[in-house]
């Protein structure tokens, strides 16, 4: 597999490296920065893999870094390599907070240790941060102290190589709780005339587990394909779920759905697509019996994700009109409407409207929220802290354009981007029916909590007509 991993700065100069095999010459990485440069000169396309002299440079970008894997054979699984690199960055982020040139330089010792442990001879090994943290710790004195006690100092946890490789034994909490966050991100592309071109819901069930021992969890949701019979004669789940975390008494079963498809009106079961599970979920059990059962890792993790491509109407609809009078001014008129149930409220709504990069002297008229001009993004940002369902707000902006414009100015055509959050609301209508927690030996009482939230995905955009 991988022959070496390099962390390079934004020019492609190596900062730190770990070589796993010696089938690439030491000098191979020096070529990387030239290769990057050559590719930039040729075109604007820089694919994440460059081949040169029989060596393949596979890389991802993160902040101001390139993380590069060198490989020598066409038979290398590139999907694994990229997945691993992203995982590596994620693990480092948990250790170092931010992964950038400076933090790489400052923390070389721990990074070497991690690289040693996470990959051996180019084959990915352990990437579970919770387990790594058991025996690779940042503060060295802890290790020394543990050693004084002559106890098992920094040994790999025995469960590391077990079938439950993500959870160490002997976890203890005074109060046993599990928090479920159902986060749905909406990706939507809306055409100039308000037509939805593409829409999808990307949902994630995030779990924060604070449970002792080796608990076995079963999760029930209102998906058609998922076995929910547990519900009958077992109301532990639903009753305890009713107490929402924030105490607003939001009733789970009244969770609204805005799916326009009539066949899937709320109450009835929904059908999730592309379910993806964390490795702790017993996949074969799900495949055969449709039960989501798992032993959770400790702390935060994403239990499952799903995707829905039903057509949904825009939750925040923006009607943007841009009128450009060349060489004098540009006028922007924007009408935003929260197309959600009246009792729901969209919070932290941000509407980013692109303007010509050479425009200046903005003047605004608006009824709600606040507007500012963000010259570095060539856009104006309209922020509305709280946007109740059914309301319609509007704004008007005018910016002056220079009288002489540079014709060769490379323009970028950007759409309007919208950000928002709608608490206590899921677009798909997914509901957690129950979360059954069972720890065979400790038999404690535990409390599951559930929260729902809908927010924008990374691509909630509206195209605009420039006239």
């Amino acid at each position, binding site marked *: 597999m991988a022959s070496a991993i390099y962390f390079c700065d934004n020019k492609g100069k190596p900062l730190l490296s770990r070589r796993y095999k010696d089938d690439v010459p030491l*000098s191979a990485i020096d070529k990387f920065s030239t290769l990057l440069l050559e590719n930039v000169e040729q075109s604007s396309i820089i694919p994440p893999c460059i081949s040169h*002299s029989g060596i393949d440079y596979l890389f991802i970008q993160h902040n101001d870094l390139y993380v590069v894997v060198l490989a020598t054979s066409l038979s290398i699984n590139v999907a694994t390599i990229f997945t691993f690199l992203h995982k590596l960055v994620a693990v480092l982020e948990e250790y170092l907070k931010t992964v950038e040139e400076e933090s790489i330089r400052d923390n070389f010792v721990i990074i070497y240790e991690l690289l040693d442990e996470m990959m051996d001879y180019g084959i990915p*090994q352990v990437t579970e941060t919770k387990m790594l943290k058991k025996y690779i710790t940042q503060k060295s004195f802890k290790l020394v102290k543990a050693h004084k006690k002559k106890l098992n100092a920094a040994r*790999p946890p025995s469960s590391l190589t077990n*079938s439950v490789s993500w959870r160490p034994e002997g976890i203890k909490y005074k109060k046993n709780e599990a928090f479920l966050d159902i986060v749905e991100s909406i990706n939507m592309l809306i055409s100039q005339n308000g037509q939805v071109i593409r829409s999808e819901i990307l949902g994630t069930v995030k779990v924060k587990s604070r449970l002792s021992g080796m608990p076995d969890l079963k999760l029930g949701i209102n998906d058609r394909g998922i076995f929910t019979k547990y519900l009958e004669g077992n109301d532990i789940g639903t009753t305890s779920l009713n107490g929402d975390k924030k105490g607003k008494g939001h009733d789970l079963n009244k969770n609204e759905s805005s799916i326009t498809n009539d066949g899937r009106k709320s109450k009835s079961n929904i059908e999730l697509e592309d379910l993806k599970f964390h490795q702790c979920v017993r*996949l074969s059990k799900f495949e055969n019996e449709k039960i989501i059962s798992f032993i959770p890792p400790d702390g935060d993790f994403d239990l499952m994700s799903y*995707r829905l491509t039903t057509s949904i109407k825009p939750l925040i609809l923006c009607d943007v009109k841009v009128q450009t009078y060349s060489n004098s001014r540009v006028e922007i008129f924007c009408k935003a409407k929260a197309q959600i149930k009246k009792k729901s409220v969209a919070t932290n709504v941000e509407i980013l409207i692109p303007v010509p990069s050479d425009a200046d002297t903005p003047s605004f008229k608006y009824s709600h929220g606040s507007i500012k001009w963000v010259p570095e993004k060539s856009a104006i940002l309209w922020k509305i802290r709280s946007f109740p369902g059914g309301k319609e707000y509007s704004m008007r902006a005018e910016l002056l354009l220079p009288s002489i414009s540079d014709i060769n100015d490379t323009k970028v*055509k950007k759409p309007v981007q919208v950000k928002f959050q709608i608490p206590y609301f899921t677009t798909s209508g997914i509901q957690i029916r129950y979360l059954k927690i069972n720890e065979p030996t400790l038999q404690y009482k535990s409390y599951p909590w559930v929260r729902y939230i809908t927010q924008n995905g990374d691509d909630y955009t509206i195209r605009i007509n420039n006239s």
Partner: protein
Amino acid sequence: MPPLDKKIKKFLKNSIRVAPKISDKGEFGELRAGLVSPYPQTRKDAIKKTIQQMTLGKDVSPLFPDVLKNIATIDIEQKKLVYLYVMNYAEIYPELCILAVNTFVTDSQDPNPLIRCMAIRTMSMIKVDKILEYIDTPLRRTLQDDNPYVRKTAVICVAKLFQLNKQLCVELGVLEDLANALDDDNPMVISNAIASIIEINSIDPTVIDLIRLIETHVSKFLLVLNECTEWARMTILTALAEYNSRDSLEAKDIIDRVTAHLQHVNPSVVLATVKVILKNITQLDPNQYSPDSKIMKKISSALVSLMSTPPELQYVALKNIRIILEKYPEILNKELRIFYVKFNDPMYVKLEKIEILVRLVDVSNIKQCTLLLNELKEYSMEFELEFVSRSIQAMAELGIKNGNEIFIAKIADIICNEILERGGGIETIRDDCCVALSNLLRCCDMNESMVKQICSILNSWSSPEDILTSDLSKCHYIWLMTKYPNHFTTVIEKLKTFIDNFTQEESMTQVAILLSVIKLHTRLEGSVLQNLFELATSYEAVDIDVRDMAMMYWRCFSIDDSNVEKDQLINELCNNGLNPLPRIDNILEMFSPDTLEKLLNQLGTISSIYFEPLTEDILNESRKRRSQMNQNIIKSQKLNDLQDIARNELLDGHEDVLLDFGDEDDSSSNMASSNNNNNTLKELDDLFGNITQDVKNLNISQQQSNTDSNQAPSANTTTSNTQDLLDLF
């Protein structure tokens, strides 16, 4: 108040510290003194600073003996650092490592499994015969260790040892131990063992029978698959993909057992699962994997889910989807919208998405086609050069794939009236439009209004030789002029300017000019043709194929007037273009069936990204390269020389591959031309066609290799596009 508490602690710690500190300067003197200091804290500091210097790229190998003194410590972190140092310099100064051999052996018996692992891991990486002589006992011991963590490390060490010293590895008999590790109870040991065997097999396929081992362990693999880490699953799935199931029952069983993994969160596990399923699915009754079958829907859904991963993985997924689509064209037909471009996608993802979109679109569904057309139109209004260019090309591809004249006319209309109109910003837009329009015209050349519309636009360009920048687009422009001379008011003047620039043009345009002049020779003054023939056969830098072609046409035209066949021949030459063209129905690039099968077996690999199937030759080449590198390193002390050798070796290998491909094309076209001389006049006509084909084949593939040097050019993809272009003349 923990923060204050911590501060006080730190302050106290610093104030009572007697051990001298090491500065950041990294001077050898200071470091060396620190490394042998009586204070443990100072020594540790010094090691850290040494490694810091090492990370910065400074050669701190002179400190080797001093660093090594610190290896016997109870502080695990310090031990790790020393090991790290040793491992790093083992590669450059292998001789020095002999000093550490004792510690390695002792550490491999340490009660702490972490240390045992570190010792064996490091030891198996040091390329010195003398150290390897000592590896026997530690390696065997760790292979049988009680702790699975140690065993999973040891099995990989066998592969490392094999790479360093094949002979020793075979002599020690650890390969048998490795094979036995496949029967371990621990899933991680099993998966590392199979990964290790795969590595060994890739170095030398003769020592261990990978296929047989996989065959005998299939049921075991399927059993542990559900119990291991994501990476172990990945390895096991890779091994399963190598296995050929015996019958449809077994294939069904394997598919059923792995299908659950389509829902794994790790994209590479998903892709590996798809590969295993596709490998076994052909064993089943075709009804069981019809486009509507459950399993195909699951695969489709899994592939779609890969579109919500980081861009690099999307890129891999898109490339692989293209391969899968060619085998199973209906698999994703309901998911077109997923591949619509997002404005913040990186360019390499955007371009790949367009590739998939035009392949995926269901041409019988006119609504879908219209939607896609609108989307492509939107893309063509963007500002990034490659993206716009690809979108325009995609429009033509879409039109030709659809084949409906009304639809094509609509596309031509959009290109003529909306895309060309916007002008500004993008220089090459006319090139792309010209190529797209002429491609579209080829599809319905009998549609008078379209011919008129397109030609009148192109006719209005005052100096096409300057407006158009690419060889391909000029070639297309000249073809259009020649084909519809009546629609171009100034065809003669335009052609003349092209002739004036003849020597500056690239070969494809030169051929086009030549053929155009021949066809229109009745409209031109007699000397034009003659002059062009002279020019094309005399000037120095002329492409050999262009010259040969000019030469032969010249001979045709210089046949004695008394020969009755002459007029007929020339007539045929000139009228060829007026006959209906062979209809084109697709200008998308396709793989040859053989390549496709190979690529399907290599999903997820680098091969699948470059569309360059892994052949036995390539494998042997890399094996040879590897073994040479290693053997040399072990025996020689002068490593730098060796690196040079290795580097040259790499370079050579790479060039060979490229050259092979070029030669083939060259020779075929040369052969064609030499044969031609002997043939009778009547056959000449047909053969000219062949030459043109070859010339173009060569040119287009060359062009591709130039524009995208990463993508090993389409030696293996049948470019239907290219094929079709040939019919132009």
